[in-house]
């Protein structure tokens, strides 16, 4: 009954009402932590914001209401993103709500849903993603981390890398090889692993922003119960693809580009080129690209909402967004003059940071499937061109 009435709350609310409520909530509840931070905040810092969202029931805007989400329409999801961007709210550790939650809703057992979804919503479980390995990057299906069944337990050995904020997480989901005798995609399973177990080691990697955002995670005879497998044995690639589809919708979201555009606008005013017609032409081109991207994004949000599968064409959005984000960041470097060389934001305003934006935009064309590999996927799967 309470779930239904909550459902009614957002479904019957006008978009304008929802925007006003979102704005008021953020302004009233955002804790005393940095705003407009270019670097991802660690959970130790952003936890109060996660908890504020958890108390309000706003951790998972996209999940269906029956699982504790907000069940928002595409438009309202966009509004929620826009209001967060407008305020400069920190991005929470969102791999649980954005990546794992939807996957468990689709493929998990009832027991798994009951065990894990509430703990994502409460902030008790912070998830990391264990996909890439040193020799399985673009070629993700080449993963070698191995899981062997021993009685009622999986025994896991191997190494994952580029686990975003892996040093904050207490759980990680991994792609593990469970059959070496078949085609590489056919021998992979999807397994949930607590990170506080003996044999799990995390090593942070400093990135070009001098931030330990990514981690290597090592597994040395790590034992987890058999029921931590999601889906069937050797069906992990199906789930990996579904999850990558979600990830590509997420990376394809206009959030990064639109916030970079706002930074570009501020920087242009600061350095005095905002009124230059040549700059205005370039700025408007970028702005229209963001506007069209937003329209495309909305179509994917609608598909997700109606439980439709995300096809290979989602890579169009991922490629376009990541390269648009980079183009905006490159324009910031081009107009920033001497400020573009700085290590920290200019005049301590986190938004006036051409170099930071430029560097943070780099990996978006690499992770979630490199844009080179995704162009191959589009050529084969969408354009139906020969191999």
């Amino acid at each position, binding site marked *: 009954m309470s779930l239904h009435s909550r459902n009614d709350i957002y479904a019957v609310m006008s978009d304008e009402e929802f925007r006003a409520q979102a704005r008021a909530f953020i302004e009233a509840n955002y804790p005393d932590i940095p705003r407009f931070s270019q670097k991802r905040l660690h959970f130790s810092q952003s936890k109060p914001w996660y908890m504020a969202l958890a108390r309000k029931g706003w951790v998972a805007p996209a999940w269906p209401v029956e699982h504790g989400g907000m069940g928002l329409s595409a438009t309202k999801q966009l509004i929620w993103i826009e209001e967060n961007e407008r305020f400069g709210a920190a991005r929470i550790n969102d791999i649980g709500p954005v990546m794992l939650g939807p996957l468990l809703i689709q493929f998990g057992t009832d027991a798994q849903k009951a065990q894990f979804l509430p703990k994502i919503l409460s902030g008790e479980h912070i998830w990391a993603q264990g996909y*890439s390995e040193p*020799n399985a*990057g*673009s*070629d993700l299906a*080449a993963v070698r981390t191995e899981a062997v069944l021993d009685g009622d337990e999986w025994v896991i050995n191997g190494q994952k*890398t*580029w686990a975003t904020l892996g040093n904050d997480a207490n759980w990680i989901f991994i792609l593990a090889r469970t059959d070496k005798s078949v085609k590489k995609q056919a021998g992979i399973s999807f397994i949930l692993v607590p990170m506080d177990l003996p044999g799990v080691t995390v090593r942070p*990697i*400093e*990135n*070009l922003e*001098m931030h330990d955002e*990514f981690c290597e995670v090592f597994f040395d005879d790590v034992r987890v119960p058999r029921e931590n497998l999601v889906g069937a044995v050797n069906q992990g690639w199906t789930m990996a693809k579904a999850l990558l589809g979600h990830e590509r919708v997420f990376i394809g979201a206009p959030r990064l580009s639109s916030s970079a555009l706002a930074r570009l606008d501020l920087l242009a005013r600061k*350095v*005095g080129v905002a009124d230059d017609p040549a700059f205005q032409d370039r700025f408007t081109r970028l702005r229209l690209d963001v506007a069209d991207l937003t329209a495309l994004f909305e179509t994917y949000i609608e598909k997700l909402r109606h439980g439709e599968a995300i096809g290979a064409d989602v890579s169009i959005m991922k490629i376009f967004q990541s390269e648009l984000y*980079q183009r905006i960041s*490159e324009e910031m*470097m*081009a*107009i*920033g*003059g*001497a*400020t*573009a*060389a*700085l*290590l*920290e934001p200019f005049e301590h305003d986190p938004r006036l940071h051409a*170099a930071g934006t*430029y*560097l943070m935009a*780099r*990996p978006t*064309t*690499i*992770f979630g499937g*490199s844009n*080179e590999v995704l*162009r191959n996927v589009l050529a084969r799967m969408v354009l139906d061109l020969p191999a």
Partner: protein
Amino acid sequence: MTDLAEIEMIRDSARAFVPPGGDLVRIRGLRFGEAGFDPAIYRQMAEMGWLMLRLPEEEGGLGLGMRAYCALAAVLGAGLVPEPLIHANLAVRLLGAGVGDAVLAGTRIVLPAWQAGFDGLDLAAGVTGAAGGLSGEKRFVYQAAGADAFLVTGAEGGWLVEAGAEGVSLECEGTQDGGHFGSLRLAGVSAERIDLIDPAAALDEAALATSAYLLGVAETAFEMTLDYLRVRKQFDKPIGSFQSLQHRATDLKMQLALLRAGVDMAAGALDAGVDDARRSALVSQVKVRAADTAMLVAREAVQMHGAIGFTDEHDVGLFVRKAMTLANQFGSAAFHRRRFAAMQPYAAA
């Protein structure tokens, strides 16, 4: 000795000192330190004559041309040398032999504090030298914390200001390459006005040398990337065997060839003697391609390295950061495009 032999000699001596690819352990060790460079190495470089390259022989210098200077700068860029030689050379160029033996010997470091705005080559703005002394602010003084004195520039000449003099304060903020910019504030500093020698030409020469340095940075980052394309395997093949990457690597090579040709052409023209407008147009032409190419190679180097290229522990990032730091120094590509068009209006043949 012929010009070419001189250029070869300086290139060889520079390479002996800064091997291709450089000593990246040294470069890493100096990053984000207080001076951002090693004064002892700076002195050794001065002992090789690198601060008196452009000083005429009759004034005790080596009397070398821009071709030799650019050859040296490209080697320094290939090794990511953080010692501010181009900047120190600018101060020497502006002051001539009057700069003093200690400066030429590298025991006294004088860096130019010429810039006040975000972009461009205006060395007049920021300070005034009224009766009450020198006042105002110069910004973005590269590696300023290592300087013993600054050559502060204004509309009617310059002033040598000791770093520790009364009324002088310096605030530094880090740059991406591990060096820093200083903001130099002057409040009624007593200093004697000095005539500057042909400041417009001196700044053009610094911009051209910076272009050559960026060429060295970009070429080395490109070589590292090619090496990676040859050895990194995905899908059971070296990624350099994939046609899309081959085409993009080829595109980078094209830009580097254009940049190298431009640097050589402009340096040769300056050595041969050209009028002021032509000199500025040529330098702008080269600086545009240097900034754009260095940034293009930097982002493609990261992309082609994949995620490892986004880590600070991989050396390719050192080259990316250097390109980011220097691309806009002595005028951004946008500034130089505007200046080129102004200096050399298009006339149909």
